[in-house]
């Protein structure tokens, strides 16, 4: 019995090609994880005023943009891998309450002040959204 148990753990059960297959399969899994799980990571934040791009910021370091809209100043806060509308003069504060945007394709619109921020990833998921 102990002999059988020993032989189970004997490395001779794994031949050289087996190691190759194990390594290749592990590499494939890691590559899949890296491609599949980083697809939704945002890379840039695009800030618009009245539909026109006023800033295109990489999401790699913290910075703040102040955009002058018809009602006043919209402050857009950029941080590594996320962005938010920090403050806005719009009456209902919808875009501010959305909080931090963290996925590619996420956007916050401050309609009364005509400002918006949209996160862009490696691939654009869609051109535009209609409601």
């Amino acid at each position, binding site marked *: 019995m102990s002999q059988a148990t020993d032989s189970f753990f004997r490395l001779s059960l794994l031949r050289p*090609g*087996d190691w190759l297959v194990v390594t290749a399969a*592990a590499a494939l899994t890691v590559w899949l994880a890296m491609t599949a799980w980083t697809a939704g990571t945002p890379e840039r934040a695009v800030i618009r005023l009245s539909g026109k791009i006023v800033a295109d910021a990489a999401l790699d370091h913290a910075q703040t943009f102040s955009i002058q809209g018809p009602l006043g100043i919209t402050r857009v806060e950029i941080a590594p891998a996320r962005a938010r509308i920090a403050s806005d003069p719009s009456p209902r504060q919808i875009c501010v309450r959305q909080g931090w945007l963290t996925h590619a394709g996420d956007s916050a619109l401050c309609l009364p002040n005509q400002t918006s921020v949209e996160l862009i990833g490696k691939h654009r998921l869609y051109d535009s959204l209609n409601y």
Partner: protein
Amino acid sequence: MRIELHATPADHQIAKLTALAIALSLAEAAIPSPLPGVKPGLANIIVLVVLYRFGWTTAAWVNLMRVATGSLLLGQLLAPGFFLALAGALASLSVLGLAQVLPRRWFGPVSLSILAALAHISGQLLLVYLWLIPNASLANLLPLFFGMALLSGLINGLIAAHWLAAGQETAGG
């Protein structure tokens, strides 16, 4: 009219192994799984052993009989689960057919087991994508499924390799 069936010792052995594969499939169905489709696939140990002892054709018979009988006993015949099991079995058998030409000196049961496990999950996910969930978000689960396939393929392969090695020792070869 009388029909006589002559079962050879090999027939008996194949029948026993098939019964064992069906039993493993049934036992596995009772194990709760955090994610549908993540199962150790213990019946594939039997398929590997049959492949080494009796060849690919017999291994294909054993595996397909296991899928049919297993789903019949679970009341799953012709339900989605049956087609997923069939897709997995067909994909893994195809890859086993190709992989068995690999030089035996370098590639043992563990290689075949891992390749079969990856083919199995690929076949199943392809069917899921084409038939049940045609959504790209399925890609998010790919690394998880492939990682589990690698792990279960490795363990099943080691068990099969051990089984085959033990069988050779008792047979005096």
